């Protein structure tokens, strides 16, 4: 298991290098100009100087390697220094700079990360917490009214896009009922009970919108997995041994049914960041999604490159996590 994980990690490095090259290359083809946003009065010579100062005079390959070193070596070292308080080298390193703000992209990401993690993370947890019981009960009581309702719920949840449910929630809970704020206030700091309540309130809608979407998908998957296992011979054996239905369902069946579901949960997690991009727009959560959209609109290539690459890293990492979890949950899988 350990050697397998290490081997997979070793494989991940060339994979990510290829991905980074593709991302960098494709985005480099975009006809974006870092000076396009600047006032028209700036003369062309100055513009050219700005371009050169941003390193755009170098050939593509040189720029790629610079970016790679900045992102892969300099930024991690910076983060390490910040966390540990050490000083490694002279501490003066070139960083990936945003064209729009001229500040390091990683600093922007670090600023925006918590909001996204809260919304995405909570929505995923909410999705799992809703989906698993629904899936188990739907399968155990197949074709019951509960199951029918669950089917309807997931059909609706899955087929309506989050931007629609998001707007619907806003119309109902913010505009009509006035219960929840329609805009996510990032400046809110939780320090007492009132601010905590405010934080919970503003998180409810974005979390639920994404969470219900996740749940609708996951509950179907869970149901199918449990149904599949309920028909297995070992379930009959467990009953023949005189186990209670609770033990049969929640120990024997659930444990087996979770194997594929956990994998799907891990594999889907990066996609949820994608979903968050839309949800963040609707609820004005200024997280990574908004950062990305803003960067795309402003033609801020370094920010887009870095964010896209981070998403790619997440996908590769969660693929690995899914595989390892599979091996842990299913004793039949041996990777060595």
């Amino acid at each position: 298991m350990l050697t397998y994980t290490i081997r997979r990690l070793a494989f991940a490095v060339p994979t990510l290098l290829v991905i980074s090259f593709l991302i960098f290359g494709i985005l480099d083809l975009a006809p974006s100009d870092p000076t396009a946003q600047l006032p028209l009065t700036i003369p062309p010579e100055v513009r050219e100087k700005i371009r050169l100062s941003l390193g755009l005079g170098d050939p593509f390959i040189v720029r790629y390697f610079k970016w790679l070193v900045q992102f892969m070596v300099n930024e991690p070292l910076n983060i390490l220094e910040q966390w540990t308080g050490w000083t490694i080298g002279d501490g003066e390193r070139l960083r990936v700079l945003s064209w729009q703000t001229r500040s390091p992209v990683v600093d922007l990401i670090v600023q925006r990360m918590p909001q996204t993690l809260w919304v995405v993370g909570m929505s995923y947890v909410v999705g799992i917490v809703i989906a698993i019981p629904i899936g188990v009960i739907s399968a155990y009581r197949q074709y019951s009214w509960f199951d029918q309702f669950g089917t309807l719920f997931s059909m609706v949840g899955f087929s309506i896009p989050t931007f629609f449910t998001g707007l619907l929630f806003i119309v109902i809970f913010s505009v009509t009922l006035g219960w929840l704020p329609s805009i996510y206030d990032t400046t809110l700091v939780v320090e007492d009970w009132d601010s905590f309540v405010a934080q919970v309130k503003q998180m409810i809608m974005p979390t639920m919108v994404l969470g219900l979407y996740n749940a609708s998908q996951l509950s179907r998957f869970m149901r199918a997995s449990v149904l599949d296992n309920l028909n297995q011979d070992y379930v009959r054996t467990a009953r023949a041994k005189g186990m209670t239905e609770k033990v049969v369902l929640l120990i024997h069946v659930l444990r087996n049914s979770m194997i594929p579901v956990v994998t799907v949960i891990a594999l889907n997690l990066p996609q949820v960041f994608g979903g968050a991009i839309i949800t963040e727009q609707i609820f004005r959560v200024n997280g990574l999604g908004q950062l990305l959209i803003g960067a795309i609109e402003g033609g801020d290539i370094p920010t887009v490159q870095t964010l896209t690459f981070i998403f790619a890293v997440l996908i590769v990492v969660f693929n690995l996590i899914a595989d390892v979890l599979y091996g842990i949950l299913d004793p039949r899988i041996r990777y060595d």
Partner: protein
Amino acid sequence: MPLADGAPLSRAPAADPAGEAPVLEVDRLEVVFDTRGGAVHAINGVSFSVRPGELLGVVGESGSGKSVTMMSALDLLPSPPARRTGGAIRYQGRDVSSMGPKALRKLRGGDIGFVFQDPMTSLNPVFTVGYQICEPLRAHLGLSRKQARKRAAELLAMVGIPSPEARLDDYPHQFSGGMRQRVMVAIALSCEPRVIIADEPTTALDVTIQAQILDLVRDLRHRTGAAIVWVTHDLGVIAGIADRVAVMYAGQIVEEAPVAAIFAGPRHPYAAALLETIPDVEGERPERLTTIPGQPPILRAPPAACAFAPRCAHAFDRCHAQNPPLADDGTGHKAACWLRPETVAAAEAGEGAR
């Protein structure tokens, strides 16, 4: 040939010489499967019983309903598609279907041990073998974790698994098919049940292991007086261990008799044909293994005629018009064939009573 004494004896099993009451009785069991293609009448009035210490062999072709009968006895069939449409199961005289869930659980695994047909899929793949053996020990005998583990190791040793202590922590996929079947036997025997139902327990095993398992079961029977229902294709095995044999066809018992009697003279043409299919171990080997031509029927309705008639060399008019009842000739040898006078007499008595 003494005539039958009236009512079909399958309804009221005769008192045995030892006078002991049956521990498990299956009484006119009927099971229907609701499938997409319509109802399938898998079991059509099966009755049998076993007394403590007795070993009943149940034989029949594939699809004759052996497994369905046994699972139905413990209410283990998934419903839907299975539906019990008639009959009763009694354990020590108590009706199983009227038991509460708690009593039923005590019955399952505690009083009645079940060995399933397919050892490859009957164990849970994600739990260790030790865990799976300990489960009933803890639930029925109330053993502590440590006690259960000790007992589980003893059980594995008993069924002939080498280094049992260490193997408790292995998963089912680390065992061969034969070893898994031994684990299944160990689970079935774990709580010293009064009845053991073994559904083709040795089919997956090679001959030496078969013999070991048979010895084990025989030993248990003598030691604890457990009753055993042994389902098999292999009449050779039956001849060696059974006290009585029941032959099943199309969800019915077509012949039931003490083992010596049935091997000396099978009365139902199907039973006779089955006996011919076993290679004679002692005498001359036949040129080739004989099989019965034709296929067992899939019954869309309860049988209105002899279900064996399409394949029977002796079939005549009545066979196609009426289903022969199982009748005792007074010696404990029962058959359901219109060629048998006791069957004819039982049918007449039954009609007279109506």
